[in-house]
Structure formats: C-alpha cells, structure tokens
C-alpha cells in the first residue's frame, strides 16, 4: 500500500523533474541559437511577453531542487512506517539516485553534481552550527576527554591503518595495476575516509535515541575529528605535491605541528567569534528584528575566517555555537530566541536534505566511475574492522580512567556508528586529478563507502540498538525536584572534592562557574538577563505556565469557563503546607477568617433567596464575564508597515491578558491555601442544619459557592454578597449552557455529607472518559476526578489544598497585593 502510494508520489516528482530537465535541454538549443542571433538581429518588434529562461536559470534550478527535496521529505514522513524502517538519509540518497538517473537518461550528462565549494561553503556550516548551538554543553565538556581521544587518536589510527593496509594489499598485486605514486596516495585516501561524518551521524542517531552519553561521544567525535581529517588530508595532499621522495623529516614535524595549529586555531577562532557574538547580542535590544541575523552571520564569519586562515572551519563554527549559546540565549528576547531556534533547524535540516539527495544524484555519472572490486571490498572491510579495533582499544584505555566505564554494548554501537558521509565526499571531490591519478577509483570507492555506511548501517542501527537493549534516552517532563537535586549534587560533589583535596572535574567546573558568574557573564549578558537566568526558576516558571495552559485549554475544550471554578474536590495531593514558621505569622489571620467564615455562612439563606432571581444574575454575570474576558470587541487587524518592528496584534494581546488574569487567579488561590485550614467538615454541618437545602445541594454545590465564604480575601470591604451571587449564579448558568451534568454531580460530592445519596447518580452521570476502571478502588473523590484535570496540574492546582477552595471570579476582582509572598513568577514575565 504504502509503497504504491510512494511510487505514485515519486512518479509525480519525476514528472516535475522531467519537465524541468526537458526545458533545460530545450534551452540549450535555444541558447545556441540565441547566441547566434541574440546580439546581432534587432528585435522584430516589441514583445509583450518574453521567455527569459537563461536569465533565471541558476536560481530557478536551485529553487526547484530545494523544493523537490523538501517535498520528498514531506512525502517520506507521510507514511510513519517508512521512516522508522529506513532512515531518511538513506531514502534521500535513493531519491537522488533515481532523479539523477532520470536527468541522466534525459540529458546524458550529469548536469547536477555537488561541487565541494557548494558543500563546504553553503551546506555544511549551518549543520555544524546547529549542532554546536544546541550542544548539551555539560555533557559535552563532561565527556570531552573521551571525545577527544576518539576524535584524535581514533581518526589518526583509522587513516593510517586503512591507508597502510590498502597499500600492503596493493603490493601483493591483488588489486591489479593501479596508477599510484606509492604509499602516500593510499594514506591520503585513508585520511579522507577516516573521519566519521557529523551529518550522517546526526541524521541516523537522531532517530534512534540512544542514551545521552553514548550519543555525545559518537556525535562529539564526528564533530571534532574534522580538525584531524583536514590536517591529515592537507598534509598528505601537499606531500604528494612535493613528491613522495622529497618529503623530509622536517616536513613530517611540520605536519604534526600543523595539526595542533589547525585544531587549536580553529577552536580559538570559534571562541573569539562566540565572544564577539555574545557581546553584540547584549546591545541588540532596540533592533529586535535583525537580532537573530547576528547569530547566523557572525557564526558564518567565524567559519569563513577559519577557512581563510586554513584552520579547521568546522571546529571554529562548532565552538562558536557551543560557547555563545548560554549568553546569546539569555540576551535575546523570547521572540528572537524562537526565531533563531527555528531558523537554525530549518537551515540545518534543509541542507541535510539537499546533501543526501545530492549525494544520490552525484553518483549518477558514468564518466566518474571506475570499478575495482578488490579495492572497493577491501576498503569496506578495512574501514569496518579498524573502526572496531580502534574503538575497543581506545575504550579499554579510557575505561581505566573513566568514572563511568563504557560497556560492551556501548562499544558495539560506537563501532557501528562510524558512518562516513558528505565530508568524505567533499574531500574526495576536491582531489586534484593531476596529482592523484586514481581519483576516479577513489571517488567511486568513497561513494560506495558512503552508501554502504549510511544506507546499510543507517538502516540497521535502530534494530541493533533495540536488539542489544542499549539504554535509551528517556524523554520526560523536567521535574523541579530533579533540577533541585541536580543542583545540590553539583555543590555536594565539588565540596567533596574540596574536602578531599582532589582537583577533579567538579572542582574545575565549580571554579569555572564562579569565574563565569563573576566576570564573563557580567560582560556578556544584559543586566536584565543576568537577573532571571537561574535555570531552576525557568523550569519552575515554564512548568507553571504549562500547567496553566493545559488547564485553560482543557476547560475551553469543554466549551465553558466553568472550569475556572473547579473546587478543591479535585485535589489530588495534599501536602501540609502549614509549616511551623509560616503558621506563626499567619495564625492570627486564619483564625479571624475562620470566624468570619462561619458568620457569613449564616447569610446563606439570604443568598438563597436572591438566587431565585437567576435570570437577573445571569445578566449581571454575563456582563461581568464580558467585562473580564472580552473587554474589547475584536478589532480589525491593524496593518503594520514598519519593517523594524513586529507588533503583536490585538487578538494576541487579548489572549495574553486572559491568560494572565487566569494565572493571577491561580496564584491568588495559591496564596490562600497557605493557611491550610481544614473546614469542609465544619461547612458540612452548616448545611445539615438546613434540610431544605439538601434537595438543592446538587445544584448549589456545583458552584462551589459555599466555599466562597471561606476565602481569606472575603473579608475585603467590597460587597461580598453581590459577587457571591454573581459567581454562584454565573457558573451555574455557564454549566447549564454547557449542558454538562458532570460538573454538578461531581462537585456535589465534594461535600461528604451527600455522598450516600448521590453515589449512584454520580456514576451514571460520569461521561465515559471519566470513568477510569483503574481508580475503582479509590475514594469517592478520586472516582469523580474531573476529566479535564489531569494529574499534572500539580504545581498550581494542588496548592489549593484539600478542603479549601477559592472563588476564582471573586479573586480576580481583588488586586493581588504587591508583597504577595508567593508571587513566584519572575517580574515582568506573566503578570
């Protein structure tokens, strides 16, 4: 089925492409005729419409390619199964092969191949920048030792071993007669194939989700080994240029020195540009529209500068990303940060798509192929074998020093993850055919190696990982306690190192963090960013917002705003927040409130009378509601002609305000719960006294109205009854409108007194999604848990403790005091 679908889609693409290439072929003819008569013959008259293909050809073709690639990617992801079996990279290569074949069949010329300049200047930088900018820094630096070992020693080993082994086999004559100078050609070939490719590794491992440590090691290696590869490549290339015989010992020493210069120099360039970028981002407050541009342009400049100085450009741009991320993220406004994030991902995944497709297309060119079975097979074999040997040996050495040793399974995955990719392709395409006579063979072999590793290993990595039961990374919600424990951990570990007198990893990190806080952050961060940069606070804030959004969204889904009045019956957890310290301060108030509460409860009958005129209340309530939420009629979209700023439109502002109001209400209720007084039983007694009320209990309790009277804010001088009725009637009205019997019955049970009578009704009234078989054994309250209040409202919801509730509508009208002890949101964020 899916295959068929896919075929259809692919054929569609082919048609598009054919169209495109045939126009091109046509144009060749046109071009030749045009050049003949274009300049000389005067136009026969004014043409209204002219066909200017030549004029737009290049950008047009590029755009069509990008569109084809993007559509292909879209198509691949339409069937969810396809991409889980075959990685996207492999699919794109196949597509490229197919399209290349079509073009070749039409043209008999491989018109589109990936030129090394295209790859190195326009496709690679953004992928590496993306990798650097989103690098989990802590993990990266924590495993830097291992990463460097694999990247440097591993790569040198791979290059040397593959090169020399191939040379050895060549000497035995197994490969037949090759037109090579000697050992150097093989070493050059070995070095360009040595590096594990970041693009391929990201593409494959991203879909597999292995555990963090394993990922960072494979991925970090693939990023950092570039420096080594480039140096080795340059060294051997220039040695070949000098001529194998003329290479002196001094040249070899220079080669070794150049390694350090290239790698460290590239890193240094990266750090310098990261500094520059962070510093600039500190002052971009007024030009928010171009703010994201700085990130890209300065990083790209770092890449080009390193390239200009013949240093490792990949290292440069990686380290720009790695080093600037902390400061840039803190400095940029939220909108810009999002823009950067999306731009980065767009560019990276876009060029990744193009690279893999181009890898496919470029291979369809008969003129560049040269087949040598022995050479190709042996290369494949050597690459695989030496990768395994390298990984196992290096891991063995590393494990003697690593605190967390890498296990056998990790080693298997690491060996298997040695994917070669576009970097090798770019390097082999750069070879000078005059110097390296066997360029065609090298090229063919490289392409085969890339296909073999990306397609075959890429496809099987996932099943291998599953089969070996490699520890996967878990995606879970960040918990505050986790963050707190993590923070505590850092301090504990560095303290232990201090006490035991060891200068270890934690010691260094601790010192660095202090240094960073003291000097670097002060220099590179905006003052406002400095204040609110604590991560724990961020997590806390984000979780709160997430909760609030879910809460509101769930309520809206129900089509009613009654959810705002969710009474405390939905409490899932109760924590005794009534801590000693707090209660000391607040004991007087709460006792006062308690008295107040009972006094007001007596007024219930009066309130009841007024409730009868429900219609009035509805009107009042509607007015109240409109005033609160729809305070302005929706205006026509205001067009904005300014190029320098984006103003949020009216709708957004309105939504935001509604959201903020709700948040405020939640926070206010948070505060009120701190008294933690249990009053439901007392309350129940009041109701018992009034038998007539029992009948109406269902209706009345649904409003949570009775609980209003216990609100601490109630002692406010404003007319309480008025609002009371409003809110009672109002929510009743709303729930009527919503035709949700659920809320009524559920909340009715809130009052324990009525449980016996209501029980059966409740069960029936529960909508199917609310009846959860798992919770049968739980209490009444648990059973009637509202479907729209999932457990994860924990940070906001539960704080309205067990028996206390608050009238949200009421609270909204009361300004939250400034000295609110628990207004935990950072200033200027949500409130």
């Amino acid at each position: 089925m899916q295959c068929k679908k896919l075929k259809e889609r692919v054929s569609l693409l082919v048609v598009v492409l054919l169209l495109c290439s045939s126009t091109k072929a046509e144009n060749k003819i046109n071009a030749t005729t045009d050049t003949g008569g274009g300049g000389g013959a005067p136009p026969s008259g004014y043409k209204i419409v002219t066909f200017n293909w030549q004029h737009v050809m290049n950008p047009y073709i590029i755009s069509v390619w990008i569109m084809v690639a993007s559509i292909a990617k879209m198509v691949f992801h339409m069937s969810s199964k396809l991409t889980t079996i075959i990685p996207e990279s492999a699919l794109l290569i196949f597509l490229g092969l197919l399209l290349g074949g079509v073009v070749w069949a039409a043209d008999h010329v491989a018109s589109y191949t990936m030129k090394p300049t295209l790859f190195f200047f326009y496709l690679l930088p953004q992928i590496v920048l993306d990798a650097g900018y989103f690098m989990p820094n802590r993990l990266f630096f924590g495993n830097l030792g291992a990463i460097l070992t694999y990247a440097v020693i591993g790569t040198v080993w791979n290059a040397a071993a593959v090169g020399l082994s191939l040379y050895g086999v060549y000497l035995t004559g197994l490969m037949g007669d090759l037109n090579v100078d000697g050992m150097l050609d093989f070493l050059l070939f070995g070095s360009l194939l040595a590096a594990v490719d970041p693009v391929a590794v990201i593409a494959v491992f991203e879909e597999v989700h292995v555990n963090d440590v394993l990922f960072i090691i494979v991925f970090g290696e693939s990023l950092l080994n570039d420096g080594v590869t480039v140096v080795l490549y340059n060294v051997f290339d220039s040695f070949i240029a000098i001529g194998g015989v003329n290479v002196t010992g001094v040249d070899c020493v220079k080669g070794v020195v150049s390694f350090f210069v290239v790698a460290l120099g590239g890193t240094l360039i990266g750090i310098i540009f990261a500094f520059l970028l962070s510093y600039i981002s500190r002052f971009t407050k007024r030009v928010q529209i171009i703010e994201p541009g700085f990130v890209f342009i300065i990083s790209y400049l770092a890449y080009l500068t390193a390239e200009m100085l013949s240093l490792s450009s990949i290292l440069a741009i990686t380290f720009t990303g790695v080093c600037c991320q902390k400061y840039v993220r803190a400095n940029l406004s939220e909108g810009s940060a999002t823009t950067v994030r999306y731009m980065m991902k767009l560019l990276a995944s876009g060029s990744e798509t193009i690279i893999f497709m181009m890898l496919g297309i470029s291979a369809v060119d008969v003129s560049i192929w040269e087949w040598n079975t022995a050479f190709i097979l042996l290369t494949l074999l050597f690459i695989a074998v030496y990768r395994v040997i390298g990984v196992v040996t290096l891991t063995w050495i590393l494990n003697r020093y690593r605190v967390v040793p890498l296990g056998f399974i990790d080693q298997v995955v690491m060996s298997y993850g040695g994917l070669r990719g576009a970097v090798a392709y770019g390097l082999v395409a750069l070879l000078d055919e005059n110097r390296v006579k066997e360029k065609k063979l090298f090229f063919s072999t490289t392409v085969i190696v890339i296909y073999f590793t990306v397609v075959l290993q890429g496809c099987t990595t996932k099943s291998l990982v599953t089969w070996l039961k490699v520890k996967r990374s878990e995606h879970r919600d960040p918990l505050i306690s986790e963050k707190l424990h993590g923070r505590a951990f850092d301090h504990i570990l560095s303290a232990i190192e201090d006490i035991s007198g060891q200068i270890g990893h934690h010691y260094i990190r601790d010192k660095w963090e202090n240094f960073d806080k003291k000097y670097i952050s002060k220099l590179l961060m905006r003052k406002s960013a400095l204040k609110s940069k604590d991560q724990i606070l961020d997590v806390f804030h984000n979780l709160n917002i997430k909760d609030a959004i879910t809460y509101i969204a769930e309520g809206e889904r129900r089509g009613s705003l009654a959810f705002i009045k969710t009474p405390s019956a939905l409490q899932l957890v109760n924590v005794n927040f009534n801590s000693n310290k707090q209660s000391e301060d607040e004991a007087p108030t709460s006792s006062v409130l308690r008295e107040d509460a009972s006094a007001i409860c007596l007024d219930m009958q009066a309130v009841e009378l007024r409730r009868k005129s429900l219609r009035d209340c509805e009107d009042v309530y509607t007015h109240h509601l409109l005033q609160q939420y729809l305070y302005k009629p929706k205006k026509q979209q205001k067009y904005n002609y300014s190029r320098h700023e984006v103003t949020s439109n009216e709708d957004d502002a309105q939504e935001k305000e509604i959201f903020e109001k709700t948040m405020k209400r939640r926070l206010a209720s948070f505060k009120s719960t701190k008294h933690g007084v249990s009053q439901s039983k007392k309350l129940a007694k009041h109701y018992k006294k009034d038998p007539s009320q029992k009948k109406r209990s269902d209706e009345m309790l649904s409003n949570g109205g009775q609980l209003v009277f216990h609100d601490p804010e109630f002692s406010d001088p404003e007319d309480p009854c008025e609002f009371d009725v409003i809110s009672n009637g109002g929510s009743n009205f709303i729930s009527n409108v919503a035709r949700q019997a659920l809320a009524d019955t559920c909340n009715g049970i809130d009052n324990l007194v009525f449980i016996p009578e209501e029980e059966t009704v409740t069960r029936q009234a529960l909508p199917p999604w609310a009846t959860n078989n798992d919770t049968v054994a739980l209490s009444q309250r648990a059973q009637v848990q509202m479907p729209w209040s999932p457990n994860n409202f924990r940070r906001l919801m539960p704080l309205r403790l067990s028996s206390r509730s608050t009238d949200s509508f009421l609270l909204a009208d009361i300004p939250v005091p400034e000295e609110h002890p628990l207004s935990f949101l950072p200033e200027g964020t949500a409130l």
Partner: protein
Amino acid sequence: MGAFHSRPDENDIRHLAEKTGFSVEQVEILHRRFKQLSRDEDTLQREHLYGIPDLERNPIRTQIVAAFFDKRNFDKDSPQGTVQEIGFEQFLTVMSHFRPLKLRMTEEQREQLRLEKLQFLFNMYDLDNDGKISLEEYRHVVYELLSQNPQIGNESAAIADAAMLEAARICMGQMEPDQVYEGITFQDFLKMWTGIDIETKMHVRFLKMDNTTLCK
C-alpha cells in the same frame, strides 16, 4: 605538611582500604589530606572543614559539613545524633559514599551502592532524623541551595513547595481529601530517583596522585 610522622601503619591502612573500598594509595592520600585539614590532630572538627577556602562559596556547605559529623553516615551501630569530632576512619567512611563504580559489578552490588548513596543524600535533607523529609526541612535546604541568587529569595519556598507536591504526586498518586502528605520518606525518595542512575552521577574521582600541596 608533616603528615607522615603520624602515619598509620601498613596493617591499619590495608584494613581501612578493605573496609571502605578505597585502594591503599587512596587511603594514604586521604590520610595526608585529613592530617592537613585537622592541623595534624587525630580528629577533625567542623571548624577545620569550614576553614577550607574553596568551600566558602558553596551554598550548602553547612549541610555538607554536617554530613561528616552525622552518625548516620558512618556509625552503623547507633545511627543517631551528631558528634563533635571525627577520626580518620569516619572521615574515610563518609568519603567512601562517593567512590565511583567499578567496571565489573553485579547487579546486587550496584543496587546496594545505589541505596547507600541515596541514603546519604536522604540524610542530608532529613535534618531531624525522623525518617521523613518534611516540608520545613525541604524548604530549608532549597533556601540555602538557591541563596546565591538574590533574585530567587522568596521564591525558594514556592519552589520547594512545588517540588514537594511533585514528590507527593509521584509517591502517593491520588490522595484522600483529608490525607496529608507529611514528608518524603526514604521509600518515596527511592521512588523519585527511579530512572536516574545516581550510581553513575554521585561519584568523585579519587586520584592516585597526591596533590594536597595544591589545595589549601
């Protein structure tokens, strides 16, 4: 330094090494460090630890130092109360909680180690040793933890509350309305840590190299 003249004899060291799982060299290095900290005395006091300059900026150093003098962490016979001074063996025992994993370990050993490490952490939070981390205790630690950032200040209590709620949710699931979550017990604590491989995190690399001279 002059740590060597009061060096314990070979047997003692070997005995300690076996008991705590450190290598003989590590024990010797730690012993030198111990002597350095204690100003060549046989016992170590709180003041000695507070005197470490690098520790000064550590926001939870009170807790950490207290852990060294907490009998729960080294005295298996009467795990209660605190002491005023500790000897080298106790010092070593506390340190041994931070030993890294060995390459070859059975699952049981790992689990054991995990429990030990978590118990140590738990003790650090549970100030009054009632087997529960009460909200008050939690707030206290969180307050100190975040005290370096002046902006958080008041919010630390809210954050601790939120963390406590999280704990309650994880450990108790849905609760009865009038049930009150009093505090995190050790069992709850374990539950919260499931999925986080603490045994790979809570460790310090104890070098075989002596660099006591570098640290003050």
